[in-house]
């Protein structure tokens, strides 16, 4: 198989699977006459998506803003923390357990507290989502800043490079592939964090994102709208991941093995 065919099949194969699954789903729903308040068919979901677009798009904007703000915060905090970590092993050893603690504590368990403490719903939700998205940024960037070619480090030392020169000319570029690996994970996590936090905040919150629509639709047994909201969340997750991947590719394509086509 030539490289060209390969690239196309990379896109077409999963797309084909998707089409088959959707047709199968529609087929089952039609043949067995499944009521739409149990499982709506994909066609109904699509129609609902269009019909409820003004409502859903407003919610999408809310959830997307929370996720993007959280991702931005996670990137800034994660990179800053990583920079602090690589300054000394002692600092890393004393702080890393707390970063891990943040990572292993289920967000649903601390979200109510954060929502009580931070009165404004939007910042509260952003904080929750940031906590979910933060750790991969810290862990990957730290690993990257440490994964420097030993020979290049020696070269910098031989030429009496300052700490800053070594950091910005050597450690930062070396860390980029790791940073982007973290970004791809965190982009998805920021959305998951936003949705989970919205769920915890419940319908009482004034920020009405997609999770709010799912809760409302569930209460009203408006299952097609629930599915439509679900589809939007998934699509947003895929879009965030694709954007992170594109950014990584644009930055690394010239030199990093991960982006060079075989």
């Amino acid at each position, binding site marked *: 198989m030539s490289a060209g065919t390969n690239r196309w099949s990379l896109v077409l194969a999963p797309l084909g699977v998707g089409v088959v699954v959707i047709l199968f789903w529609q087929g089952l729903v039609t043949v067995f006459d499944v009521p739409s308040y149990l499982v709506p068919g994909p066609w109904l979901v699509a129609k609902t998506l269009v019909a409820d677009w003004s409502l859903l798009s407003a919610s999408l904007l809310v959830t997307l803003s929370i996720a993007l703000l959280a991702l931005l915060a996670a990137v800034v905090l994660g990179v800053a923390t990583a920079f602090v970590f690589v300054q000394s092993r002692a600092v890393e050893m004393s702080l890393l357990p707390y970063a891990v603690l943040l990572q292993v504590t289920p967000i649903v368990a601390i979200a109510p507290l954060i929502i009580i403490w931070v009165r404004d719903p939007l910042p509260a939700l952003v904080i929750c989502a940031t906590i979910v998205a933060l750790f991969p940024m810290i862990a990957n960037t730290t690993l990257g800043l440490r994964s420097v*070619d030993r*020979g*290049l480090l*020696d*070269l*910098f*030392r*031989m*030429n*009496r*490079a300052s700490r800053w*020169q070594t950091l910005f*000319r*050597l450690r930062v*570029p070396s860390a*980029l592939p790791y940073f982007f690996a973290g970004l791809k994970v965190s982009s998805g996590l920021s959305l998951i964090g936003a949705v989970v936090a919205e769920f915890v905040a419940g319908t009482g919150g004034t920020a009405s994102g997609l999770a709010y629509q799912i809760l409302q639709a569930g209460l009203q047994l408006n299952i097609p709208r629930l599915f439509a909201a679900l589809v939007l969340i998934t699509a947003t997750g895929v879009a965030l991941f694709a954007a992170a991947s594109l950014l990584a590719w644009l930055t690394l394509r*010239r*030199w*990093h093995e991960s982006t*060079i086509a075989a």
Partner: protein
Amino acid sequence: MHKVTDDGPATALELSQVSHVHANGVRALDTVDLLVRRAEFLTFIGPSGCGKSTLLRIAAGLVAPSQGAVRRADEDATAFVFQSATLMPWARVAKNVALPLELAGAPATDREARVAEALARVGLSDFAQALPRELSGGMQMRASIARALVIAPRLLLMDEPFGALDEITRGRLDRELLDLWQERRFTTLFVTHSLVEAVFVSSRVLVMSPRPGRIAAELVIDEPHPRDDGFRLSARFAALCGQLQSLMLRAGAA
């Protein structure tokens, strides 16, 4: 780039009673005494793990020996060429070669001229804007040498620089290195595990014993320069190789 002139002391490097134990307890070097004359081409040969790299890193000032003293005549003009080319993969060749000058804060115009000259000297002028991954192994090594040349080194340390290359490329780079050395007269400390390469390039070969490394024997190669393929094919070359082989056998180094 200026030629190294005879204005300094005759000794380029002196190691006295140098021993080294690594942090993990491995004894890498045992009481090494070494006097390197200016403009000498000195080669270390010995089995893998005998401490050759450690010795070079100590000579470079990258590692402080656990015991003994190191005196270098030219602290600032020391360049290191590693076994792999160790180029920054994200930077173009010219940028890689310019690195030592940039780190030292040399003005941009001066930098460009010196980089262009160094690249021309190793025959990479046409590849200044290439990325390292676009070069062959031999060309990457040339870029690495250009990066060493750019600071006009008085002491050049080379740790198995051509060890990863094929025999033909290695032979060519050996000749090019000798030309450079003839022209610039920097002091060279060279590590190899190739007996043939050692005899061809060196003015003096030191045989190291297995770990902990000591200097077990010395062979002076008093063949005049320039050396060419005629020397490589001569009976004298074969005799010197034989001599070095037997020294290595006696040292337990082969």
